[in-house]
């Protein structure tokens, strides 16, 4: 007998998920998919990441061969244009026709475009597909002002994307009197508005666009109140419109305001035809989120395999993934008194607004809104969905989680096994715990693979992690971070072992404590420990080949294969004579020069062969290595302080120089930076550093564990009003504690975040010496400081090391001919990657 044939119209997120679910249950059925877009289904939820460097391939939901492997016939760029229900046939844009036994609509929705005069003009876009984004980013290059119509979830996301594309003047136009009218209330909207304004967005509420002006292309927007606004481009994000045109044309029942009517089995008015995802209208409602769409796919796939599942109304809680601002709503967010009791917490200064709605008997959480801090979102959502009895003082729910040391996993134990943790993939708490207890999963990747939790929108990841750790612990499993297959130890264990056994080279360590031949993970890690412990020249004893390339050649390798040279300029203070030397060296060796963020000068584009001569000249002029290549102290930034500044309280430059010279060359698990400001105005940005110092009337305030980079974090105050000696003593202890205990490649901020007890614990260790280690650490760091030597000086003076700075072993004088530069603004820059 011939297999029954299923045709799916639409290869979007839900159409794809349906194929995946069906094939995981059965290999019968001929499965044919028609997609209108030119590419395989991709992750529309994370579409905006396309602007942040993700490629279309990264976003793709499957590999190229997946459909073939699963025995699915996929047609792309080939929309279905007509359906003949009598004959059970579909006709496509490319002139194909196929018969079906079962037809599935997964046509999703398109952007709803209101009928404003001028909407057809050039420069008006929607925000739905990768092609839309390509058009937007091309057009944005010549635009100075932009507007987004629609202040909902998608509108805000689009507006943020426009800012990221470099359009400083981006406006949001919303018809309603508040932002995200379906998720948050007026007070929440006010708070969100002020936060968005800080990001550089202009918000216009209560605005009805009446006309789009411009000759052929948009130049301005006109509103019904006769005001207008300049705009070089416009993105429409005024809602979605289900793609039901095909269904309508063949006489299937559709809703008055759009959407293909389905019952709880996803069946349309034609028993052979089903609809799932954003095109389906269930009980008068379109579900514009992936999670319910995936659930529909699950219902249909199960029922086609003779199962029996029904779709019922779905939780529409959402968390906005805008970078930098937390916004979330869950459960019954708008219910008001007298139907419930409402608890509101507001902190205008910090921009936090939280509202929870509690049942009148105080027993259950009904819903809520979170702006500015949604860290409690997952837990609150679960508390509401699972009807978990509330504590006596429900306000603890929104006041409890105040920054840093959240009681990790405290709440998750109270959740029932049935609690749905990952709603995108429908994974329950029980599934996740079982993957650990029965499935043998030991890390987050295992759990993701085994249960699929966290592979959708990713919002549940923090909870999945907590559950994993909690389950591992409750099984008595010690959560150990072993380094790699060659060393069965954590970094800290290895550090102690190397210390006790007094091992001095990578090879000795591998022979004594490891197995096999090592790799690119353990080599730099062991080298860093060796350097932290003994502070010997890192290129001796055969250790050069166990260093990361940057450490191996004492310079940062740059795109194209050239290196950069960064001499140390302590505190950012430099004499005119030395500036001239840098300029002359740069000219002589044709180097690109740039001032770094750490107040020194970076010389780019040096050939490997030239490095020793360049350094010889710099050293002769009194410079030394800046260790920009090493995991160790980078710079100590400073402001001029009391020597010049009329506000300065102490001499911040002198103190910065003293500190930079004290800790230069010391290797650590990761790089670390510092700064000293001469007063509370903080011109040196000390609070963004691994340790930062700010002058006070009475001395210095010491801050620790801050960093810039991709996840900025403010440093926390460790101690106040210190004299210089005490300040240095605390930094000594702090650095040694960090060097000894941090995981590899962990900055101080992350190290602190993982520390049980947080900053209070750290303060106790450093200031009160609660571990009794202070004397030893001070002694150890003294040894490191006194053994400091400039690595570059040693390298140029040692013929064996110097010999390694040539590109060809059989033509030592020749430079790498493959390095190419191009000219830019009167200097050179490296040529682009030869491949993208």
């Amino acid at each position, binding site marked *: 007998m011939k297999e029954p044939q299923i045709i799916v119209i639409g290869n979007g997120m839900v159409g794809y998920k349906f194929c995946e679910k069906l094939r995981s249950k059965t290999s019968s059925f001929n499965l044919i998919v028609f997609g209108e877009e030119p590419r395989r289904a991709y992750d529309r939820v994370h579409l905006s990441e396309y602007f942040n460097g993700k490629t279309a391939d990264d976003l793709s939901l499957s590999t190229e061969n997946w459909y073939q492997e699963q025995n699915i016939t996929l047609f792309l760029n080939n929309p279905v244009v007509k359906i003949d229900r009598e004959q059970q046939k579909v006709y496509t844009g490319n002139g194909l026709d196929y018969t079906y036994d079962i037809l599935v609509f997964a046509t999703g929705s398109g952007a709803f475009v209101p009928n404003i005069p001028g909407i057809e003009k050039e420069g008006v876009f929607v925000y739905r597909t990768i092609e839309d984004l390509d058009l937007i980013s091309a057009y944005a290059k010549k635009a100075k002002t932009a507007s987004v119509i629609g202040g909902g979830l998608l509108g805000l996301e689009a507006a943020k994307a426009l800012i990221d594309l470099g359009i400083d003047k981006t406006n949001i136009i919303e018809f309603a009197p508040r932002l995200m009218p379906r998720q948050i209330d007026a007070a929440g909207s006010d708070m969100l508005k002020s936060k968005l304004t800080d990001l550089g967005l202009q918000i216009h509420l209560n605005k009805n666009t009446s006309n789009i002006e411009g000759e052929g292309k948009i130049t301005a927007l006109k509103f019904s109140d006769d005001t207008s606004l300049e705009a070089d481009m416009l993105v429409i994000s005024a809602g979605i419109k289900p793609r039901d045109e095909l269904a309508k044309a063949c006489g299937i029942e559709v809703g008055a305001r759009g959407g293909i009517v389905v019952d709880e089995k996803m069946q349309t008015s034609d028993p052979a035809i089903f609809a799932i995802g954003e095109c389906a209208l269930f009980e008068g409602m379109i579900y514009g989120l992936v999670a319910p769409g995936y659930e529909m796919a699950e219902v249909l796939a199960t029922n086609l395999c003779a199962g029996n599942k029904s779709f019922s109304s779905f939780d529409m809680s959402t968390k906005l993934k805008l970078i930098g601002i937390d916004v979330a709503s869950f459960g019954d967010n708008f219910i008001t008194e007298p139907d419930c009791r409402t608890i509101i917490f507001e902190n205008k200064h910090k921009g936090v607004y939280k509202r929870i709605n509690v049942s009148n008997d105080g027993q259950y959480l009904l819903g809520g809104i979170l702006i500015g801090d949604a860290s409690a979102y997952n837990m609150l959502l679960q508390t509401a969905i699972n009807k978990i009895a509330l504590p006596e003082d429900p306000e603890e729910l929104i006041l409890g989680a105040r920054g840093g040391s959240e009681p990790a996993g405290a709440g998750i134990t109270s959740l029932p096994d049935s609690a749905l943790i990952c709603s995108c993939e429908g994974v329950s708490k029980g599934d996740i715990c079982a993957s650990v207890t029965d499935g043998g999963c030991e890390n987050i990747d295992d759990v993701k693979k085994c249960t699929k939790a966290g592979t959708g929108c990713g919002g549940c990841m923090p909870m999945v992690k907590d559950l994993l750790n909690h389950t591992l612990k409750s099984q008595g499993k010690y959560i150990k971070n072993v380094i790699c*297959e060659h060393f069965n130890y954590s970094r800290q264990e290895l550090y102690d072992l190397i210390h006790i056994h007094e091992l001095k080279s990578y090879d000795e360590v591998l022979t004594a404590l490891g197995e096999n031949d090592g*790799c*690119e993970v*353990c080599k730099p890690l062991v080298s860093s420990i060796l350097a932290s412990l003994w502070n010997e020249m890192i290129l001796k004893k055969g250790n050069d080949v*166990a260093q990361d390339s940057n450490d191996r050649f004492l310079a940062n*390798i740059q795109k194209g*294969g050239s290196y950069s040279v960064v001499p140390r300029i302590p505190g950012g203070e430099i004499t005119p004579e030395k500036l001239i030397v840098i300029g002359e060296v740069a000219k002589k060796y044709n180097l690109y020069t740039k001032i770094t963020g750490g107040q020194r000068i970076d010389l780019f584009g040096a050939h490997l062969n030239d490095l020793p001569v360049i350094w010889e000249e710099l050293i002769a002029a009194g410079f030394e290595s800046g260790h920009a290549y090493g995991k160790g102290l980078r710079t100590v930034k400073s402001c001029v302080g009391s020597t010049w500044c009329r506000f300065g309280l102490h001499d911040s430059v002198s103190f910065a120089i003293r500190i930079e010279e004290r800790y230069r060359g010391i290797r650590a698990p990761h790089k670390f930076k510092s700064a000293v400001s001469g007063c509370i105005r903080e011109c040196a940005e000390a609070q963004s550093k691994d340790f930062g110092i700010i002058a006070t009337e009475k001395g210095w305030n010491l801050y620790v564990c801050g960093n810039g980079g991709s996840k900025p974090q403010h440093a926390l105050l460790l101690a106040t009003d210190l004299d210089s000696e005490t300040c240095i003593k605390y930094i000594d202890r702090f650095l040694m504690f960090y060097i000894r205990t941090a995981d590899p490649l962990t900055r101080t901020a992350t190290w602190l975040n993982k520390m049980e007890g947080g900053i209070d614990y750290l303060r106790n260790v450093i200031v009160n010496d609660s571990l009794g280690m202070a004397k030893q650490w001070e002694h150890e760091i003294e040894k490191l400081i006194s053994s400091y030597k400039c690595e570059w000086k040693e390298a140029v003076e040692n013929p064996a090391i110097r010999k390694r700075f040539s590109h060809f072993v*059989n033509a030592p004088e020749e430079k790498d001919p493959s390095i190419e530069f191009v000219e830019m603004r009167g200097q050179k820059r490296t040529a682009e990657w030869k491949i993208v």
Partner: protein
Amino acid sequence: MTESTNNWLAACRVEDAVENGGVCVKHGEEQIALFYFTRRNEWYATQNECPHKKQMALSRGMIGSITDEPKVACPFHKKTFSLNTGECLSGDECAIKTYPVKVENGTVYVGTVPKS
């Protein structure tokens, strides 16, 4: 290609090679990375160009092993390649060419015709 019929390029003396690391050998317009895996007492040679972003870099990469397979990691983005087969071990499709190596009287020779 059998050993005897390959074109052998005298690359360097054993003592010029880097122990447990790589050097770069010039062969006309080509660049070949030569590795002296002292720990295993083995020699390997591969193309010097990393196929990922076409960087002349592999000779400056760290070598090591995964289970028992010898490998090199590109210093740029840490993609790893088998020194035996040239296959990319970081899940990418690209592979690198590998060349035979022999040592005679303290001189290291690289066969300039790649292993198939």
